């Protein structure tokens, strides 16, 4: 019973994820080619996607804060602030390398596999390995 309610409560996120994945494919955001265009300043497409997403996100968060909007179950909405550390610089640049080579950030990896590029399972497993390795050596890294 506990297991069932656990899964049921999470079904809504499965649905939002599915819609999100469809947008990823339909707007070619998961295309390796589109990412190469972006990093060569050869197309406005990805800048338009990210820019307008941020704009809508900003307005939404501002409205939620201004009108103290609550969640559907009535909880006050809380967003964890981001703490600065040097990881955002070092890790950010390393992720940028990976983004350009694979043509994907973590979200698109899942959508590419769904879209039929089965070999990307290896890229995803390697990304999981990278995350794991970070966890292992975390305390030795500059932050």
């Amino acid at each position: 019973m506990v297991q069932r309610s656990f899964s049921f409560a999470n079904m809504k996120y499965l649905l939002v994820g599915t819609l999100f994945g469809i947008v990823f494919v339909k707007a070619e955001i998961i295309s390796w080619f589109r990412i190469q265009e972006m990093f060569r300043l050869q197309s406005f497409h990805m800048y338009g996607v990210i820019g307008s997403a941020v704009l809508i996100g900003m307005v939404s968060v501002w409205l939620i804060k201004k009108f103290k909007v609550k969640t559907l179950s009535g909880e006050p909405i809380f967003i964890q602030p981001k703490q600065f550390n040097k990881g955002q610089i070092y890790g950010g640049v390393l992720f940028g390398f990976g983004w350009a080579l694979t043509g994907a950030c973590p979200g698109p990896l899942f959508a590419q596999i769904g879209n039929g590029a089965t070999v990307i399972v290896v890229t995803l497993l390697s990304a999981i390995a990278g995350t794991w390795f970070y966890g292992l050596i975390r305390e030795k890294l500059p932050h």
Partner: protein
Amino acid sequence: MLDFIKQPWPWYIAGPLIGLTVPALLLLGNKSFGISSSLRHICAACIPANVSFFKYDWKKEAWNLFFVLGIFFGGLLASNFLANSQPVQVNEKLVAELAGYGISNYDNLVPTEIMNWSSLLTLKGFLLMVIGGFLVGFGTRYAGGCTSGHAIMGLSNLQWPSLVATICFMVGGFFAANLLLPLILSF
């Protein structure tokens, strides 16, 4: 209507839809949009190996795993029912550059000539898929987020560390796409 949906969607449709994910997740359950955390939860669930970074109750964050499973299904549905029959249209300069490396198949979202099962064992394929993937996983966790967690969620919430992270993503990407990738592709 279906014909309209099957065409590639322009940025001004896709971007706002992605932006709406931010309030949707907040309203549905007070969840902050972010995808790379799912990789950490997978580590915590499958291979915690006594590493303190993976000792937490990942089940509380299971929504994130459902969300990425949804992204996988979305990819599956879009390619089977809503697929655009035309190859991806990209800038001619990119087409010319990639042709020089023997990449001319635009039928899929990944370049199938260099990203396929047999090319995994070549240096080029190994660097692009295995090392590239490793850097995605290592870099996003070190940075504390990816394009979704920092560039979209963090900037939406006016967090300056997220702006630093986003700029660094772009710096790394520009460097790798323009200087590293041509080297790798010419092997």
